[in-house]
């Protein structure tokens, strides 16, 4: 299978601060890729660069063997979707309207959203379990409900690659599992790929095909879930915590 994402020599600075220092990666065999690393090491920045939000980087990024700079914007947004960690807005938005936004890339100029879009939204809302809050104001929802809405919004976009920034950090175990079960299902049924930044190593072990560990602006190493235990010494160095504590946590 050809590479679905290939990153070569990625460099990026926030002003003076060097964030990404020659990051390289080839995500080819994995359907769900997890990215882990200490707080502030650049995981979110990496996601934003791949999804096109941050533009001033050095290096090459290829999706499905084509440089992202060669894609037309319209193609790229039907290909990729991004789930932010959280959204802050002073305005009131109904959940239904937010989910509709996910269909914007496929909306033709001067049209309004077709009936089929509404059906898709009801379907996905049922799957995720947010059907009952469709009419509610986004700002009045709990943190967890908001995350569910953001994930639903990306699923509605119907893209082949979903990039997620800690999508389940506020969710209870039930919903964490539900979201990742849905994602796993989608990777089988619609052949999508998921790249997610995660802090929960157990969750990563259960659902990710490969877990990449980021350190000092690069990917230090990657592990398959089966290799997690044996790789504890490397993990402990990244998080500056003793090996035993990591082992106990994963177990």
């Amino acid at each position, binding site marked *: 299978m050809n590479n679905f994402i290939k990153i070569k020599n990625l460099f990026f600075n926030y002003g003076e601060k060097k964030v990404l220092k020659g990051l390289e990666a080839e995500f080819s065999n994995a359907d769900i890729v997890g990215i882990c690393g200490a707080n502030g090491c650049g995981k979110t920045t990496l996601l934003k660069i791949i*999804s*096109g*939000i941050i533009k001033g980087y050095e290096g090459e990024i290829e999706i499905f063997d084509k440089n992202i700079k060669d894609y037309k914007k319209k193609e790229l947004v039907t290909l990729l979707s*991004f789930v932010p960690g959280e959204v802050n807005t002073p*305005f009131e938005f109904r959940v239904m*309207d*937010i989910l509709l936004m996910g269909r914007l890339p496929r909306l033709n100029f001067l049209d309004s959203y077709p009936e089929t879009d509404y059906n898709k939204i009801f379907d996905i809302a049922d799957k995720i379990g947010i059907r009952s809050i469709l*009419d509610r104001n986004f700002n009045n929802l709990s943190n967890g409900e908001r995350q569910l809405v953001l994930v639903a*919004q990306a699923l509605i976009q119907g893209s082949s690659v979903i990039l997620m920034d800690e999508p389940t950090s506020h969710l209870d175990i039930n919903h964490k599992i539900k979201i990742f079960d849905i994602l796993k299902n989608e990777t089988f049924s619609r052949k999508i790929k998921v790249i997610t930044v995660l802090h929960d190593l157990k969750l990563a072990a259960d659902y990710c095909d490969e877990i990449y560990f980021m350190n000092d602006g690069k990917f230090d190493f990657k592990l398959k879930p089966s290799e997690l235990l044996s790789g504890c010494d490397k993990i402990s160095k990244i998080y500056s915590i003793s090996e035993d504590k990591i082992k106990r946590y994963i177990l």
Partner: protein
Amino acid sequence: MKKNKNLIFYKIFFSALLFFLFSYFSLTIPSDYDKDILINLRIPRFLTLIITGFSLSTAGMILQLLTKNPLADPFIIGTSGSSMLAIIISNIIGLKFYGFEYFFLILFFSVSATLISYRISVLSSSQNTSLLLSGIALNSFVLSIIVLFVIFSRDATVNFFHLSFGSFGYNEYRIIGYSFFIISILFIIISFLIEHIKIMAFDEEKAETLGVNTKRLKLVVFIIAAALTSVSVSVSGIIGFIGLMIPHITRKLFSNADLKILFLINAVYGAFFLLISDLAVKSLFYPTELPPGVISSIAGSVFFIWLVLKREKRNE
């Protein structure tokens, strides 16, 4: 959702009714009915009022949505002030009122001011407050330059007072016609961009990943807001706070309406507010004519303080 749609329809119907009622009274009070006065004074005044209301409330709404800052308004961020400076300069250098060069100069000044204000705010960490701060700085700067001109040029003095607080005095039908034409075009452009603006108001990063060219959209919306303000300041001087208050009121009253409808209601409510304040001034202070900017400033300042306090309370 059906119930909400009906409620919105009733609110719109009721608002339209009130609007026509107030329009009728505005055109016929005081009741010395003289056809000449009606056609040459009352109706132009009424139309100017509508132009101003439409432009300022729409400019305020799109600025607030785009910058995700509920305190944004063309007056506060310095756009109106710069338009005024441009008008004074064009008077001094003798540009024909409402000719092509005149409008272009006003537009240039107001767009530059808006962009400068925004640029400064982006560089700071707290974007909401710094937009206001850069607006204050810009307004102070512009005012000083205007005072300089007023001191050194007699033509400038004549215009200064009328422009500072607005006047709906005498405006030719030609100018009113041009203004409506310009506003219609701007409204059409906005209606094409409405879905994109809506997403920007939710989350800028999501907008980018949903296909919105955020950089270009910001530029276009700022230019449109500046253009709307230019039109308004050209025909009636500076009327502050309309762009701030009206979007808040419309959002409160019509919280369930889609943005496409909301933006039109918002424009009408802008005209509505000016209509009511003009009517109130004419009835209460007859025969003195108070500049309309005074009423909007009084109401607007109070509203602004209330808004700030409300936000502080919520942040506690």
